[in-house]
């Protein structure tokens, strides 16, 4: 093995290691600014200079960018090195405003720490410092360019990892200014990572702004519940360490601060590799908004009676006992434990199979993936994106599972061929990372098949990864499922549009073999055959198409029990509302879209009287004479392990991590010391023979109203967050500029859309990514009840009547 001499002692190293790697591994103190373990080496700040002797010649070299060579002599603590560190720091500090008492990074700032260790105590600089204005670059981030030390970490991240193009470097030297163009908002869903990447407080988050200090914070390692990727995060709270300072006592008891202060990334190389999306990072305000505090029962005169848990559960259990045909619908947002408890309540205690979490229009008797692949799950993994030569994406990744975008950008940079099949250009095709293959609304299957046959040569003998969202055309799904089952080099990554859908499938929260699915449950409610309906963490009025059926169903059901955290509109139809915890208040496990079963720790106390859903189901099981003696979510999981075969060998409650040789004294790098790993469930893929009947093509002419996901507005939790409002365009329909101009509409105009004899007032917004003829509405239907006319993803627009002038929504 080759050797170098580090501070006088012989050290072996592997080929390709840099001096910095070796020094850190050996525990030597080398300060860095521009080096970040997850970013490409830039070697621009010169903070890591070390004295190097090679072939008799001495000099200072940046340790982060110098590969070790046999026979090198390196000193990390020699006089020359110390002098270099001291001088570089003095230079970096020339223009730094030293406003630490005001700065949000104070206490976890690389510059602070390194200056204390290596820096000068006094400045010799007697001239005015350069100053910049504070820049507002969007609802999430604040930019303080005055504090910047031009390390370029932000730019490196934004361009190479986030794939964003709207972050620029202006000017040079002292006056280097980073950020988007003047008065522009950042438009990249990974922009929040800049806060973590910046070694000091030049980029800070608006959710955290000035509320507290890093030393007051406790970081809870948990999982982001927002999407099915299950990004690993640290949730920072300020609370409840028994002896720590905290919100002070009230009447002798310590009060808890029910507030998440911020969310940061946590490294898990298999899943999110440290980077998290803005949706994961910035949507946590909802934990305090519009919450249900205690169980509420509807009295005879229609008013709410605030009750305690015992009374409420007894009353509900009595009604459930009387019910002939109960059913439960869900949004797959709970933990695996809760889903298992619900399954136990229905399948084993009530002996009824009416449970489903899918949206009605997707609730098929025959799951296309299950039928063709043998198990309803992806057989590829997110890490396969890094290996595949061709990646075929069906659907809009950015709006459904944005977290995998990091890998898509990387794959594209690596030279893999990416295709996106979607009715409109989504982010990756618009920004040039992928090739857009237009899909006609209504003719998706045909377009998909003709795309495959057209591009046969490009796909032949290549490793292909199909990324499809689980709400895409079932025929495409079964086509891909069969293709993947037959072809070893083809893999499937099924993007779940509901956060814990995979876990719900695994633990058996599905109507198989003889129960009713969501569509049939709603139908049953409507015609009165279902007399007890549980709605669990789903807002059917906002999420399901065909709102009138839903409304009628809820109206006709004698007893509707709503398990929810929020006072959403369906609670109006409820006979009882039970408050359940939001994901950050609940302990449990979640399964991500590839089958990683991950432990999420509770970061907050439950809000007022709310309880985890599994506890409620357990109480109902006990009251109905079943057997459930779990005392914690962990107990439930040990039962799951016995019953659910894929989860047999898993132990997610024991969170595993390895420690790296990173130093403790650099806050932004200290975060990366721990590498977390999760275990995957073992699925058996037993393909079946399955005939696909090619669907009849229904191509609509004229203007099509098309529904699509939205990263913030489409999320059950994120849209409640006031911080993201600027990115959520309420009551808005997106059209292409040509289409808008053809109709005589300007950007921001108010119009009345006439669809199926109903009129809806919406705003028009130009979006050049949308082809002519498509009018796209995104996200939940809480603002405009367009789901009254949308019986599936699209409908024909009969007329567009402009009203009034441009009023910005």
């Amino acid at each position, binding site marked *: 093995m080759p050797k170098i001499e580090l501070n006088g002692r012989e050290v072996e190293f592997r080929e390709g290691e840099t001096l910095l790697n070796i020094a850190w591994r050996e525990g030597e103190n080398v300060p860095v600014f521009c080096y970040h373990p997850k970013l490409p080496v830039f070697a621009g700040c010169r903070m890591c200079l070390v004295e190097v002797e090679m072939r008799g010649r001495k000099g200072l070299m940046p340790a982060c960018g110098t590969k070790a060579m046999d026979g090198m002599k390196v000193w990390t603590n020699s006089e020359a090195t110390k002098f270099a560190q001291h001088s570089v720091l003095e230079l970096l500090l020339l223009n730094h405003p030293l406003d*630490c*008492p*005001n700065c949000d990074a*104070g*206490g976890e700032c690389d510059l602070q720490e390194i200056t204390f260790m290596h820096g000068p105590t006094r400045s010799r600089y007697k001239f005015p410092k350069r100053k910049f204005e504070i820049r507002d670059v969007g609802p999430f981030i604040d930019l303080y360019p005055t504090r910047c030390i031009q390390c370029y970490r932000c730019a490196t991240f934004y361009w190479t990892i986030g794939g964003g193009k709207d972050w620029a470097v202006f000017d040079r030297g002292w006056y280097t200014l980073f950020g988007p163009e003047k008065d522009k908002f950042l438009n990249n869903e990974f922009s929040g990572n800049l806060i973590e990447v910046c070694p000091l407080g030049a980029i800070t988050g608006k959710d955290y*702004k*000035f*509320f*507290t*200090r890093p*030393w*007051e914070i406790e970081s809870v390692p948990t999982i982001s519940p927002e999407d099915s990727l299950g990004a690993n995060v640290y949730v920072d709270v300020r609370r409840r360490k028994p*002896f*720590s*300072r*905290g*919100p*002070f*006592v*009230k*009447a*002798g008891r310590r009060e808890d601060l029910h507030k998440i202060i911020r969310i940061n990334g946590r490294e898990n190389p298999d899943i999110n590799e440290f980077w998290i999306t803005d949706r994961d990072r910035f949507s946590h305000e909802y934990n305090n908004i519009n919450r249900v505090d205690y169980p509420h029962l509807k009295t005879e005169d229609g008013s709410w009676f605030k009750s305690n848990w015992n009374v409420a559960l007894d009353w509900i259990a009595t009604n459930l006992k009387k019910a002939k045909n109960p059913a439960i619908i869900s949004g797959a947002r709970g933990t695996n434990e809760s889903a298992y408890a619900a399954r136990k309540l229905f399948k084993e205690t009530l002996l009824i199979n009416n449970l489903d979490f899918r949206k009605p229009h997707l609730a098929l008797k025959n799951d296309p993936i299950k039928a063709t692949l043998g198990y309803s799950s992806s057989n590829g993994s997110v890490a396969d994106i890094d290996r595949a030569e061709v990646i075929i994406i069906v659907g809009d990744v950015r709006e459904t599972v944005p977290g995998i975008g990091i890998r898509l950008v990387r794959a594209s940079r690596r030279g893999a061929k990416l295709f996106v099949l979607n009715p409109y250009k989504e982010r990756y095709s618009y920004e040039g990372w992928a090739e857009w293959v237009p899909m006609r609304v209504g003719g998706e299957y045909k377009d998909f098949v003709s795309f495959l046959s057209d591009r046969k040569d490009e796909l032949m003998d290549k490793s292909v990864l199909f990324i499809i969202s689980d709400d895409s055309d079932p025929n495409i799904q079964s086509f891909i499922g069969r293709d993947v089952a037959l072809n070893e080099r083809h893999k499937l990554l099924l993007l779940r549009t509901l956060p814990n859908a995979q876990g719900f499938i695994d633990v058996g929260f599905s109507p198989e073999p003889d129960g009713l699915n969501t569509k049939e449950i709603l139908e049953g409610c409507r015609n009165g055959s279902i007399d007890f309906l549980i709605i669990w963490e789903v807002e059917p009025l906002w999420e399901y198409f065909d709102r009138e059926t839903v409304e009628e169903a809820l109206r006709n059901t004698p007893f509707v029990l709503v398990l929810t955290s929020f006072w959403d509109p369906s609670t109006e139809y409820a006979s009882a509302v039970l408050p359940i915890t939001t994901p950050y208040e609940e302990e449990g496990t979640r399964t991500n879209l590839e089958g990683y079963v991950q432990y999420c720790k509770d970061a907050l106390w439950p809000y007022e009287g709310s309880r985890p859903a599994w506890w409620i189901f357990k109480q109902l099981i006990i009251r109905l004479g079943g057997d459930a003696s779990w005392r914690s979510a962990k107990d439930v999981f040990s039962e799951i392990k016995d019953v659910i075969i894929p989860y047999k060998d898993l132990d997610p409650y024991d969170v595993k991590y390895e420690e790296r040789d990173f130093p403790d004294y650099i806050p932004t790098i200290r975060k990366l010391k721990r590498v977390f790993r999760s275990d995957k469930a073992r699925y058996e893929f037993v393909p079946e023979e399955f005939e696909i009947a090619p669907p009849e093509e229904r191509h609509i002419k004229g203007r099509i109203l098309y529904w699509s996901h939205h990263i913030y507005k489409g999320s059950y939790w994120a849209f409640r967050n006031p911080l993201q409002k600027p990115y959520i365009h309420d009551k808005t329909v997106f059209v292409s500029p040509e289409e808008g101009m053809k109709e005589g509409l300007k950007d921001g105009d108010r119009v009345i859309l006439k669809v199926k004899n109903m009129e809806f007032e919406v705003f028009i917004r130009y979006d050049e990514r949308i082809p002519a003829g498509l009018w796209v509405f995104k996200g939940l239907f809480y603002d405009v009840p367009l789901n009254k006319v949308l019986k599936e993803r699209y409908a024909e627009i009969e007329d567009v009547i402009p009203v009034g002038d441009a009023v910005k929504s």
Partner: protein
Amino acid sequence: MLEGLKAMLQGLIITFKHFLLNIATNRFTVQYPKKRRKLPDRARWALSLQWHEDLTERCVGCQLCAAICPSEAIYIEGAVNPLDSPVGKGERYAMTWIWDATRCLYCGFCVEACPEEAIVMTKIYEMATDRREDLIWHKERLYEAKKQQFGEKPTFAWMGFYRKREEMGKPIELARIWHEQEEKYYKNRGKGFDMHDRYKRFLLDERNIEVYKEDLGE
């Protein structure tokens, strides 16, 4: 034996002397609460928060006081200082500033840590109460304490040393002056450390006494 007796007698003489002196002048026992002893100016009792001339808060919510506090008696929540009606002079301000008198050990570290000299310890020591909540002082009570002790006018003080206006926010500079003087003094005297002496000397320094008088209206 003889030495022991001598020491005992010495002690008795002191006791007796004080007894007689006390009868004559009432100097040692104070008839509290009818009479209250005058506290020295550096007495370290309840905290108070200070304001600027325009009555904005001097605290910028940096939470350094909370960080240094050994008994975790200070709890602060920061917030963005509203530009239209600023609470303080910084970009941030303390939305919540709570001092827990039951935890505080009156060490004065917080006073020393504060970069804005927003905390000054008062001579308010009569805080006895039968309700725990009364000992948890929020911002209003802390400003009230300031008014009670120093009046409406802004006070400039750092660890009990009343200072000139220009010296505000320069604790390091002040400490330097102090240490220089001290070093000189002790070198000349060739004697050990005497806190009281040092304090007196500092107050007797011309430049300090001026401000002291001005601020206290003496």
